[in-house]
Structures are given as structure tokens and as C-alpha cells.
């Protein structure tokens, strides 16, 4: 007797036994929950793709200076598409990438199999770092300088699209925001 929209007919419903279908399912589901928690922790130790979460406070002025210094030191050529500097910092070094309305700069060149400490921040509003076609995505915010150690494992031309709506007008805006990373052998 009873429905879901009337009070339980058995006032002592708390002591009713649980039917086997439910018990088995709860045990199985809970075991899976424990497994997923453990796996997420375990991937930090055994996996090679993890968030670093190393973050510092910064300002647009401080960060822009770091970008300019790196650019002055490590520019190797002009990009054929835009005529801008292509910057190739040495493996293991600190690399600075700035998000701004509406581009990621500078254009970078990295080496496959080498690691770099990639620093990112935004110089104005919130943006998203979306590396294509790898499809690696991070949020990027003004005032916060995040450092991720990246190790490209394939060569090619990679695009950075913006993953967070950042305003703009028809001709220029979130949908036109791009950057580029070349990876060579």
C-alpha cells in the first residue's frame, strides 16, 4: 500500500528491510564511486596529464615586461602568416604567453619531447586557453599567473583558440581570438 505522494503507510518505514535489487545496486554503485575517487588521486602519481595549479599574483605591466624580455632574447624569425616575431625559448625555460582582447601573443616555437614552464595570464578580461587540435583547455584570468609544465609529444602547427567568451564586436571579438604554437623535432 502507499504512493510517493501520500505519507508512508508504515509509520516505522525506517526499519523496513531493503529489497535485494536495491542492495546490490547500492553496493556496486558505491564501489564504483570509491574507485573513481581513487583513480583521480592515482592519476596525479601515475598519469602524465595533470593540472599543476601553481599560480602567482601578477599585473599586466609586470607580465608584459616578461613577455617583451623573452621576445627580445629568443626571437628567431618572422611568421609568414602575420609578419610577427616567432619566439623559440630554449627547452626547460620559462615561457610567457599573454591572453588579451583578441589574441594570444607571442607566437611560440617549441621542440617535441622537451618540457617548458608555460606561464599564462590575461592582460584584460577572462579568457580560455584552448590548444587545437590537442583540445587542451584552461581558464586564464587577469591578475593570476599560472604555470604549467608542458611537454609537446607531436610536431606540427597548433592553434590557440579562446575558450571563454571575452566580448567584442562583429569584426573583432571572442570568435576571432587566436594564437599559434609551432612544434618541431
Amino acid at each position, binding site marked *: 500500500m502507499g504512493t510517493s*505522494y501520500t505519507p508512508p503507510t508504515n509509520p516505522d518505514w525506517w526499519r523496513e528491510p531493503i529489497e535485494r*535489487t536495491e542492495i546490490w545496486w547500492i553496493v556496486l554503485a558505491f564501489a564504483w564511486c570509491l574507485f573513481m575517487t581513487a583513480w583521480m588521486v592515482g592519476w596525479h602519481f601515475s598519469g602524465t*596529464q595533470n593540472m599543476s595549479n601553481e599560480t602567482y599574483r601578477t599585473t599586466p605591466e609586470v607580465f608584459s615586461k616578461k613577455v617583451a624580455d623573452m621576445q627580445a632574447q629568443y626571437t628567431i624569425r618572422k611568421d609568414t602568416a602575420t609578419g610577427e616575431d616567432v619566439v623559440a625559448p630554449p627547452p626547460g625555460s620559462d615561457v610567457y604567453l599573454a591572453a588579451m582582447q583578441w589574441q594570444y601573443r607571442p607566437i611560440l616555437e617549441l621542440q617535441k619531447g622537451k618540457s617548458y614552464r608555460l606561464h599564462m595570464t590575461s592582460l584584460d578580461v*577572462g579568457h580560455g586557453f584552448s590548444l587545437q587540435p590537442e583540445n587542451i583547455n584552461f581558464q586564464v584570468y587577469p591578475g593570476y599567473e599560472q604555470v604549467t609544465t608542458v611537454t609537446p609529444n607531436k610536431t606540427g602547427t597548433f592553434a590557440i583558440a579562446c575558450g571563454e567568451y571575452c566580448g567584442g564586436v562583429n569584426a573583432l571579438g571572442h570568435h576571432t581570438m587566436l594564437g599559434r604554437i609551432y612544434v618541431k623535432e
Partner: protein
Amino acid sequence: MATTTMSDFRIDPVSGLKINRTANKLVQWNAFAAVVFLLVGGLFGLLVALTRMPSVQLLPPELFYMALTAHGLVNLAVWIIFFEMAVLYFLGAHVLGNRLATPAFAWAQFWLMLVGAALVAVAVLGGKSSVMMTSYPPLQAEPHFYLGLILFAVGALIGCFVFLGTLVVAKRDNTYQGSLPLVVFGGVTACVIAVFTIVSGALILIPTFLWSIGLIGSIDPMVYRVVWWAFGHSSQQINVVAHISIWYLIASLVFGAKPMSEKVSRGAFLLYILFLQLGSAHHLLSDPGLSSAWKILNTSYMIYLAVLASMIHGLTVPGSIEVAQRRKGIDTGLFTWLRKAPWGNPIFSGMFLSLVGFGFIGGITGVVMSVEQINMVIHNTMYLPGHFHGTLVAGTTMAFMAVTYWLIPVVFQRKIALAGVAKLQPYVFSLGAWVMSIGLMGAGTLGVQRRHADITFAGQPLAYEYPEIAKGLMDLSEIFGVIMAVGAIMFILVVLASIFTGERIAEDSAPWPKVEDADVTAAKAGNKHIGAWGMEAPGTFVLAMILFVTIVLYYFINFKYLSTVWGLS
């Protein structure tokens, strides 16, 4: 204080419920406003869909961003929260045979939410507040955008307290005996989460409003995100609780089913109250400045206890239907009970499609994408709209539509008009929502970013070209998005036709035949032992195992994909 008399109530011939007339007015107005906003938001959604098709690209970027902001706010917040207010009043007053506490405050809820929604609409349609529904600073909207949201939220908060007060009245006046019915317990769960949600919203939107009028210098973007998502994510958890309560309600209405175990179902609701809100961390997994320990604890809802709760409801709702069907004598095979269910009744078909769609499309993907590491290859891609159309549209909205087909005769005292359209509607709407969700997820997996007015990057020197198949998936998805919109329009037509032209159900008309409690049928027929393998609901267990295997496989497929991308540490 006025005393209530019998003439303040009527006995509803359709449901047998004792209905308070004043409370009913409030249910009517909130539900009606909800449906009107569903129409408004849906039309903006249609514009979004037609722009996202690479082969159509209807709107220029500025209009697209405006339409997307409007679509998100109206459908995610306004339609759903108005409907939830109607559901809360229905549960607290009608289901308990009770009056509504402080109807004047309930009207204040209605008008505040309406004025708030109107202010936001003026701001968005003015074109200077295209900041998306998330409105992350330092992007700034006009002050009345934030003010409208605040008024809307305050209205909803008042509604929550009217509901809680209504429960106090019911207890004091002894309108029910013993424990609250399960669906009302679900309503309490939704209400508790709603209070947490709305207070979080106030905590961040009030300073943001002050910032927009120049009284505060700046809003830290990370602080905003952390607090805003306590509002933004939790508000979607209210929906989950509300639509699960509706599943339980419909299982009882259509099949005379009772909960398999009150203890298990209520325990699962309690897990929601305790752990669901931690899920706001899902949105912050790819953010700087938060530790992995914090992310893991929160994104897993503290060892996935809220996921456990959803998995429990996902079994117990169809399980209770199976048990009822078997008790009534449909006790052969594994799935005969399901095959012989009334698939032509939109109340049932809508509810069951909502259950399957929410579990398989919204649920599985939600669990997988909220893994801290996997989030990096999914975050803010088109996968997200795919996921939340699986939860919010295929799940919540479908369930709300299904219960509306029952509410119209009960609350508006009209028979359903255009019954043929109503019969088809859940299938059209779900087909659209399911394929669109899956297609968008496919495009997102291939990298297509959400909230982009032009995924071809036309005319950009550094342009990136998404794989052809991604563009094809976007076209396909949005064709089904249009089908979904057709399903929504069918629903709105049925609602409006029924309310304004449907055959009146006189108050003194003969009671409608009620579905008999399955237990009563079983006792009459002498049916005792049911099911197979020592289980009362073996068919449901098999269905649950299919869900389980799917989620395990999908989980590891995503980790396999993750392991092939650039090293990140």
C-alpha cells in the same frame, strides 16, 4: 489571522486532492509564466541553433552573443525557477491538502521574479549586456542586468520560505499523518538547496551590482567564479531534485507504484542535501589558483556521494514501476512490464524519456567530464552545451513537460486539448534533445569551442580549421536542435490550447477513475512472489547494469584519449 473555511477548498475530481483556491492561483500563475518564458527562451535558442550551423550562420556575432545570453538566462533560470515555484506550492499545499502560508508573500515572490526577469530582459535586449548568463567580471553588464537578477533571486528566496512556512501550517493543522510524502520530502530537499543557492548568488551579485554602478573598484575574477558557481551549479541541482520528485510522482500516478524503499529514496535525497553543492567545483577544474586536493574533494562530491544518490534514484524509480507492474500480474520475462507500459500517455512517456535521457546522456557525461584531469580535454568545448542539454532539456524540461499534462486538468480544470499532438510531443522533443546533445558532445571532443559566433575563424591570418567531421556534427546537431524546438512549440501549443480552449472540468463532476494501488490489485488477485533471481525488479537491474557498463567503458575511453595529449604537469 483569517481562519480557513471549507469553501476555500475544492475537492479535485481528477486527482482527488483537496485544493486550496488561493494556493491554486499561485500555482497557476507561476506555471503559466514559466511556459511563456519557455517560449521566449526557446525562440532565442532556435536563433542560436541556426547560427551555430556552419552552413547557415544566421546571426552576426553581436546579435548571436545577445541571443545566447538571453537563451541561457531565460531557459536556464527563468523558465525553470518559475516552474519550480509552481511545483513547491503544489507540493506544500495541494499534495498535503493544505493552504499556502502567507499568500501575500507568495504574490511578492511572483511579482519580484517577474520584474527581475523583465529588468534583465531590458538590459540584454538593449545590447549592452551580452555577457553570457555567467557574466564573469571584468566584463561588465549594465547595472539593471545585475539588479534584475538580484530581484529575481530574492523573489525565489521568498518562495522557498513560503513553502517552508506552508509545511509548518500543514504540520500544525494535521493535514497529513506521520512522515511527509516522499515527493514533498524531495521538495524540501530542493528547497534547502535553493536557499543555499540563492544566498550564494546574493553574496556575489550584490557586490557585482555595486561595482557596476561604481561603488566598488573591482571584483576579483576568481573570487567571482568560486562564489558564482555555488549559485550557478547548485541552481541546476535544484532542478535535478525537482525532476526526480516528479519521476516518483508520475510513477505513482500512472502505475499506482509505491517507492521500493522509503528509507533508500529518502536517504538518497539526504545525500543530495549534504553533498550536491560541492559540485560547483566542476566549473573550476581548469582554473588557476585552486589546489588539486580542493578540486578532487569537491568535484567528487566527497567520494561521489551525490552521484551515488542519483544512481540510486535512477534505479528505484523504474524499479518501483516494475514492481507495480509485476504485482498487477505482468510478471513474465525481464522487460514485459516496460513493453506494456502506456507509451501513448505523454505523462508516462515524457517521464520515462526524461529518466533515460538524464541518466545516459546527462548523467554519464557529467560524471566523466567532472574528473579533474579529463576536464582539461573537455572544458568549455561544445561538449558542455551537449552535456547540459542532456541534463536540463532531455532531463528536467522533459519531466516538467510530462507533469504539466497532469497538472493542467488538476490545476487549470481543463481537459488536454490537441491530445494527438500531446501524445507525440515527448518523442519529438526527446529525439531532438538527445541527438543534439550527443552531436554537440562529438563536436566538443573534436575541439569546437562553445560560445563562438563563428567556428570557421573566417578571415583570420592564424585561423584554425576544425576537422570537417566537426563541422558536419555541428550542422547535424543543430538540425536536431530545430527538431527539439518544434517539440517545445508543440508543448506550448498544447498548454495554451488546453488552458484557453480546453473542455472545462466542472468542480462537481464525477471523480476520474484513479489508478489503483498496485498492492491492492495484487492482494485482490492473490499475486505474491514476483520477479526473478530473488529480485523484485530484475529487469530494472539489467537496465541499471547497462548504464553501469556504459559509464565504466566511457570513463576509460576518456582516460585513454587524455593519455595521448601533450604532457602536462
